[in-house]
């Protein structure tokens, strides 16, 4: 099976600050890949670079057959790659319906977009109930669902989800994961999911990358890493775990 996404030796700098160095990663068609790492490890930067929001200083990112480095985000989106960013970034003053439609404008065919719209509302019945609400009035969990649904409206082959569990109750997070995996099953979506902690993801992911200090520290099949020991040491480096408050792998 050929790789859908190949990130090769990518470096990203913000001024003098190096956010990513020598990051290489591949994702095969249909895989669920999880990138875990502590806060500030560069996870969001990695997804933003793939989606065209941050220009790498060095390296290449191939999606399908095309190089996407240097493409503006709207063009990357047209290649079939969609990002659900950290913090959801729903358009709070637009209605739920309008938020969804934004994702569908990418397509020429109106009928297609309409069908997608309908199909997604079946997947997210809660959104249907609030279709004409300003999206800013939704609860956190509903907003996360909207963000996912809106991204899926662009008909991506690869969906990037940045910290879907951030600030949400565990029950809601379970629902979101259920939906993401359901989408993968039904639509053949390939997924990259960023998370700070690995406990939930080990169950669902095919493969895992651990990112810390802007570098990939570890990669492997989820099944091989199930006991968590390797992940723990990669996540914390060789320092004492006690110095990192509140993040448990």
């Amino acid at each position, binding site marked *: 099976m050929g790789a859908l996404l190949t990130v090769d030796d990518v470096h990203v700098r913000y001024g003098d600050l190096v956010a990513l160095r020598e990051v290489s990663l591949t994702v095969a068609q249909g895989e669920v890949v999880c990138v875990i790492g502590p806060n500030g490890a560069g996870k969001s930067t990695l997804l933003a670079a793939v*989606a065209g*929001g941050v220009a790498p200083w060095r390296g290449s990112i191939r999606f399908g057959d095309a190089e996407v480095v240097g493409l*503006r*985000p*709207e063009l990357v*989106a*047209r290649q079939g790659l*969609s*990002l659900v*960013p950290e913090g959801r*970034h729903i*358009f*709070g*003053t*637009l209605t739920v319906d*309008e*938020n969804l*439609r*934004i*994702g569908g*404008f*990418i397509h020429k065919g109106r009928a297609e977009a309409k069908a997608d719209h309908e199909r997604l509302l079946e997947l997210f019945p809660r959104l249907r109930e609030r279709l004409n609400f300003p999206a800013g009035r939704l609860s956190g969990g509903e907003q996360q669902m909207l963000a996912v649904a*809106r*991204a899926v*409206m*662009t008909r991506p082959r690869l969906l990037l989800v940045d910290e879907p569990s951030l600030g949400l109750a565990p029950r809601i997070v379970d629902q979101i994961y259920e939906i993401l995996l359901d989408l993968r099953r039904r639509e053949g979506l390939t997924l990259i999911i960023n998370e700070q902690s690995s406990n939930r993801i080990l169950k669902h992911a095919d493969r895992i990358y651990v990112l810390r200090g802007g570098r990939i520290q570890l990669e492997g099949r989820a099944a091989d890493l199930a006991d968590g020991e390797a992940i723990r040491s990669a996540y914390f480096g060789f320092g004492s775990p006690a110095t990192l408050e509140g993040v448990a792998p």
Partner: protein
Amino acid sequence: MIGFLQNLIDAVSLGSIYALTALGIGLLFGILRLINFAHGDYITIGAYALIVPSADVTARLLIGDLPLVVMTPLICLIVVVAALLSDVLVFRPLRRASSPTLMIASFAVSYIIQNGVMMLYGARPKAVDLWSGANTQILIGDLRVPMLQLIILVVTLVLMTALTLFLRKTPYGIQMRAAAEDFRMATYLGVRGNLVIGLAFAISGILAAAVSLLYTTQSGSLSHTMGLPLALFAFVAVVVGGMGSLVGAVVGGFTIGIIVTMLQAYLPPELRAFRDAFAFAFVILVLLVRPAGLVPSRTSFERV
């Protein structure tokens, strides 16, 4: 009472002009965080496009002589092209620049346009008679209302309604509102950034062209700095209304129109010359009480 109503009509008509101008400025600010100083000069371009380019003192109408249905779209087209050109040449290379940098760049664009117009048409103001029929007065009860003021009000209402419908109902309008709220996120969803910004410039150009026609008809004169006071009052209107809110821009525009007209009417004669000073001082007072403006908004384009 009649006097007051008469003043009120003047205020509303002046407020309409400011509101249209402020709307054009507010629209670009919402999407680009650009305070476009050159907006007033788009108005100047639209007005000068009516006449034959020459440095002569008397103006000869060129496009201004054509029938209304030809003239209006033509003037709109010229101003839209000017607005788009300023985007492509100056503002597009500055997409990643900060808000103050953009503001200074627009100040430079304004300076270039003003002096360009002066180079082509001469520095002296010119008289033009665009549509003398518009000054006929209509009697409503005891009120004498110049027809032009009614036309200004109607055109303003029509344009505001059209803009609202566009932003609410059309795919591009929805994309524009999304981009105004979170530009980066909109592009992640495939919204074409430069297209949306270009559209905003084009709409702001159409609004400026409308002001060109209405204002020139009313004032009957052209000068290469004619757009300047309009832009300055509209800026202040945008701030008073609440930056980033289109409703705020309109409310601010009408507020400034009312303040200026009422000061003109009710200040003692010896103080009337200081009208603008009082108006701006009043604005500073309003801001002292409400630093976020009359219609504060968390994000742009709220409740259009």
